[in-house]
Structure formats: C-alpha cells, structure tokens
C-alpha cells in the first residue's frame, strides 16, 4: 500500500466554503494558511460554486443562509451528480427541524454559529483525514 515515500507527493485537498459572509470565508482561509494539505476556496453562493467545470477532492462547508439556490437544493444537486463531497453545514441554533432535515440528507455535521475555530477544524479533520 502507501509507504512513507509517497507522502512527499500528496495532492492538497480543497476545502470549499460557500457563504455570503466574507469575514467568515476569510476566517476559514486563515485557519489553513500555509498548510500543504488543504487549500481553501470560497464562494458567495451555490451558483458560483457550481459554475466550476471540475471539482477537486475535498469537502464542502456551506451556510444554511444563502441567496438564490438553497442549501438543501445544493445538497440534492451534488448527490444527483454523484459527486463525492463530504459536507458540513453552518447554521443557526434555533432551527432544529432544519438541522435534522440537513443531517437526514447525508450531511456529515451541522455546526451552529457562533462556533470556535477548533470546533470547525475538528469536524473537517474528521471528514478529511490527512493521508498517512
């Protein structure tokens, strides 16, 4: 299988962030600055994210509040395309039925705002373990 030599040539994985909140996108980017394992790419809405021709391997962090296409629609669209994109949703504390709906759709974590950097990093680490 993989031996330690192949570690030198790991392709970084991409953390896609879809959120209209620019400061949040910047905050997440800052968390992984200088990382050789992860690249962060941000988009303000689902349409922009979907307009890419190709998706790198990685994961998706998406806000529950979006202009245009809703988070649920985005999740369903990705599923329909058969795209493997482990997803974390960032949402509000006061909408339990929405959180449940999102988890039932196959999302791997739902993190309520405000959240600590550690909470997010742990969640990302769980769904995107670095290749060892």
């Amino acid at each position, binding site marked *: 299988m993989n031996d330690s030599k192949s570690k030198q040539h790991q392709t970084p994985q991409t953390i896609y962030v879809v959120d209209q909140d620019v400061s949040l996108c910047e905050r997440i980017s800052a968390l992984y600055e200088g990382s050789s394992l992860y690249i962060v790419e941000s988009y303000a809405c689902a349409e922009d994210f979907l307009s890419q021709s190709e998706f790198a391997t990685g994961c998706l962090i998406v806000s529950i509040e979006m202009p245009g296409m809703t988070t649920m629609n985005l999740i369903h669209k990705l599923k329909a395309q*058969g795209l493997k994109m482990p997803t974390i949703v960032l*949402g*509000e*504390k*006061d*909408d*339990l*039925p929405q*959180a*449940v709906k999102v*988890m*039932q759709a196959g999302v*791997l*974590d*739902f993190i*309520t705002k405000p959240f600590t950097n550690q909470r997010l990093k742990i969640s990302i680490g769980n769904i995107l373990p670095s290749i060892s």
Partner: protein
Amino acid sequence: MKNQTVYVIDDDEAVRDSIKELLESVKLNTQVFDSAISFVDAFSSDIYGCIVVDIRMAKMSGFGLQEHLKEQGITIPIIFITGHGDVDMAVRALKSGAVDFIQKPYHDQNLLESINNALALNDQDEELTEQEVTMEKYIEQLTLREHEVMDLLSQGDTNKVIGKKLNISPRTVEVHRQHILQKCKVKSITQLMYRLK
C-alpha cells in the same frame, strides 16, 4: 411493512398512550414500554420494525439504548422524541445513526410520517441486498474484455479514449458497452455503478 412493530419507549404514560392510540388508528402494530430497561429485558434480537424513544429517561436514556443496541449488533431504525432537545443534541443523535429527532409537542402527522419512513427503510434494505446478489451474478457473466471496458467506462473515459487504451476501435468499445448493459440488465453505466456501490 408487513409484520413490523413500532416499539414505543417513554416514561410518560400520557405520551405512551397517545402514540399507541395514534398508531393503532392506522393499523400499525405497537408495543409500549415505560423504560429502556424494560424494553431490553423483553427482547433479544428478534425485533423487527422501528423504535420511538424519549431521550431523557431514568437509568437508561435514549442514547444509552442506542449504544446498547449497537453493542449487541442489532440494527433497527430509531426515532428520538424529546421535550428537551437542542440542535446540538439532534445533530449528535443523527450522527450516531438515528433516523429522526422530533421535538415535543409534535404534530401527529409528522410522527407518523417519520415512523413510516423508518419502516420503509427495512423494506428497502431487503430489496437492496437482493439486488446486490443478482448484480454480482451478472458481473460474473462478463468476459475479461468486457470487464476492462466496464472499468474504464466507470472512470468516465469515452469510447475513443478506451479504444486507444485497449488498442481496439471505438466501434468495438461500443459493442462491448452494449453487451455489458444487456448482461447486467441496466440502462446505463451510471445505473450499473450505482447498483454496484
């Protein structure tokens, strides 16, 4: 849905009675328990259906029951209901495998829908396993060349690219592709891949 039972576990008698009445009105088999312990004592592995359980109960909680069943290797859809839940708890419940998490007071219709979805999962599981076995048999019928073509098609290669890789004409690749679809009784490679996953 045949022969499935809804096991209702709640230490609140009014809730047990109300759910039992609701389920019996739609002809669903129901059994009620006043605690997770009494449920566990009553059954070993021959439970079939789904569980509706309150999170917060004395001695063994809803989560405790879920853990216990996992340890016993028993898989049965679990719906949590609770008067005390918050988003983090709901997320935790779903991550650990619950199929739904409903807050009290709930709408009867929502609970019913949730229960029916859970019971339908059991039917689906049976169907899926049969499908898996059949698909394996079909795959065994493929020739070596057809296997090669199938693998490359599943990666997304076009007929032209496959032709180059295998040193055959794209037309021949297409013929193989048709044979694969026929032998596996599917309409597309995407469908085949989905069934094989």
